[in-house]
């Protein structure tokens, strides 16, 4: 069959496209990049428009950070896991926090039942943060605090308070808060979460503002397109959305008119992208995102500080591409996606584990993820030179096309009134669902081939993997831990600091100074989010589940 195709000059398919549906030609030639102007469109790395990378030396100066996302059961178990990972050579941590804490409930709350230790580690007070990082050198290694919208300020304050209590100057603490309200709103199913998005934007803005002055090495927000990419949107929508959400938070901070310019706070912004299956499209996406960001910061905001124009980013390989079937194959997917991130100029990388389509990664699976990155950094020599694919007719042409489509999507969001408004309108969720359904339809019809799922299936997988099981006693243990904490701490002090927090929240002042005090007094997550989030629920109820039901239309 294929032989005769060769003889006849026929191709296997009528149309070849990228994963996002961009049509791809048989071969690319100088004509496809005839308009490319090296200085205007590419330039050397470390220079405007940063297409080739944000630093002049890139991996010749410093390798990307091996930052594995992890968290399981309670603080002690996570501390063991982190120590193991540190011993194996990770150069950054990222805390995976459990569902109860992400929403802002303590383990002794009825709302937390069945949610403690689910999907991450239970972290509800400074005590958990202390135990989780016990014996780990947080002055030498950076940490990403990956929480959700409700807990952006308190979870960050816990980590920063831990650093201060250890005698580390806040000005030297290195790390990132993920807490992008835009992303969570876009990917969460807590559609009717009555906490107004605007209050969550305000809290995120408070952290940005406070860090710019007090913790200048801390990245107070990481715009996370990863989440909505995983939920459904395609590659160019991912970066169009990324830029739109970051612009929305710029507007939030500028609208306060407290004397900050973009060059005061945007240099601390960071970004978190996905690396999906389409190898070249992902590389093109990362290059296009850098160029697009630089253009917008220059043209729209007249940014002067080069760091304002640099899109620094973390990549997580795409969990949704991992298959339940033949899970060992996932290790290969992760390796290709990691290579794409390296060629795309990433600053830090989480390589998923092969068992992530089934459970929280086992130690064995996490070890392989770390080794995958180390093999890439130490053996493949892809780190020898910067942006090695620049100048490729295909890669440059695809970078242009991805950027053009991303810019279109960005403008569509702006036409809906910006990210927050488009989110409130439900438009973003609609786009996400539409793409997710299209993707699934392509798998069903065989247009999109997934090994082990719709081709090359096996009745029985010969490779056996072991599964991680969460501690079944976790809820009971953490509940007791919460009760003990509330008995032993100075409750007068807690009350005093919570009152101060309430006053700051009411007056529109920055909540972070009061939040730091409350955290140090061992106020809990729920107590603090009661003040900064749940008081703002329209319905006055504590439940986040009101009015969620809807007919699928």
């Amino acid at each position, binding site marked *: 069959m294929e032989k005769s195709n060769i003889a006849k000059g026929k191709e296997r398919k009528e149309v070849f496209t990228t994963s996002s549906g961009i049509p791809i030609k048989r071969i690319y030639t100088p004509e496809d990049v005839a308009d490319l102007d090296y200085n205007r469109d590419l330039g050397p790395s470390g220079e405007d428009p940063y297409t080739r990378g944000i630093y002049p030396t890139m991996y010749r100066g410093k390798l990307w950070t091996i930052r594995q996302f992890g968290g399981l059961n309670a603080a002690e178990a996570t501390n063991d896991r982190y120590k193991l990972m540190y011993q194996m050579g990770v150069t950054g941590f990222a805390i995976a926090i459990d*569902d109860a804490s992400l929403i802002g409930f303590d383990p002794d709350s009825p709302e937390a039942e069945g949610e403690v230790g*689910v*999907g991450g580690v239970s972290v509800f007070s400074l005590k958990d943060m202390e135990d989780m990082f016990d014996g780990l050198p947080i002055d030498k290694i950076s940490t990403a605090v990956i929480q959700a919208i409700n807990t952006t300020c308190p979870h960050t304050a816990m980590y920063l308070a831990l650093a201060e209590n250890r005698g580390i100057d806040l000005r030297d603490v290195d790390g990132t808060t993920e807490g992008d309200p835009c992303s969570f709103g876009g990917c969460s*199913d*807590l559609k009717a979460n009555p906490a107004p998005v605007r209050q969550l934007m305000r809290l995120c803005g408070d952290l940005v503002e406070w860090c710019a002055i007090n913790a200048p090495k801390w990245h107070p927000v990481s715009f996370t397109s990863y989440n909505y990419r995983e939920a459904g949107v395609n590659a160019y929508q991912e970066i169009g959305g990324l830029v739109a959400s970051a612009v929305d938070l710029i507007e939030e901070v500028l609208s306060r008119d407290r004397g900050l310019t973009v060059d005061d706070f945007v240099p601390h912004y960071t970004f978190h992208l996905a690396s999906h299956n389409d190898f070249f499209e992902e590389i093109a996406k990362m290059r296009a995102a850098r160029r697009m960001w630089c253009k917008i910061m220059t043209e729209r905001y007249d940014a002067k500080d080069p760091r304002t124009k640099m899109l620094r980013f973390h990549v997580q390989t795409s969990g949704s591409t991992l298959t339940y079937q033949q899970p060992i194959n996932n290790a290969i997917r992760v390796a290709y996606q990691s290579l794409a991130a390296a060629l795309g100029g990433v600053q830090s990388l989480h390589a998923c584990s092969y068992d992530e389509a089934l459970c929280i990664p086992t130690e064995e699976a996490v070890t392989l993820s770390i080794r995958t990155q180390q093999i890439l950094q130490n053996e493949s020599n892809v780190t020898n030179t910067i942006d090695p694919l620049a100048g490729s007719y295909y890669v440059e042409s695809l970078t242009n096309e991805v950027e053009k489509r991303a810019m279109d999507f960005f403008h569509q969001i702006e036409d809906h009134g910006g990210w927050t408004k488009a989110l409130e309108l439900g438009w973003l969720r609609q786009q996400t669902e539409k793409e997710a359904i299209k993707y699934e339809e392509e798998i069903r019809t065989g247009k999109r081939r997934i090994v082990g799922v719709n081709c090359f299936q096996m009745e029985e997988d010969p490779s056996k993997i072991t599964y991680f099981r969460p501690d079944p006693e976790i809820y009971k243990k953490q509940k007791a831990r919460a009760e003990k904490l509330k008995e032993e701490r100075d409750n007068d002090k807690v009350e005093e600091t919570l009152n101060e927090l309430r006053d700051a929240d009411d007056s529109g002042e920055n909540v972070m100074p009061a939040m730091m005090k409350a955290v140090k007094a061992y106020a809990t997550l729920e107590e603090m989010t009661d003040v900064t989030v749940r008081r703002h629920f329209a319905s006055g109820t504590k439940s986040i589940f009101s009015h969620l039901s809807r*007919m699928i239309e």
Partner: protein
Amino acid sequence: MGKIRVLMAKPGYDSHFRGAVVVATTLRNAGMEVIYLGGQQPSEVANTALQEDVDVIGISTLSSTYMEYLTELTSLLKNKGIAEKLLVVGGVVIPDDVPKLKEMGVDGYFPPGSDLVSIVDYIRNGVK
């Protein structure tokens, strides 16, 4: 017979909605009436199933707590006298646990990567 009525939900606070929404939309396109609840606790699912008199309850799980969640849900459905409703689970269940689902009263299980048409067929055949 009227349209088949389906209630679709996910356990608790977990936010991985992609599978649930894709399946819900597929069932709608196949002519069924779908009520999408998003993340809910078992009691809400059981109450809504009773009030809405649905034929099918679909639970999409990507959360490690599926055993506890489904144990509670199936017992609530029994208490309310609606255990005969078709209970279908989709998403991540560790292979060793799949036989236990049937024992607990789950009628059908569809792992990630299942053919969407097979889910539609299963429901049509299951609802008499």
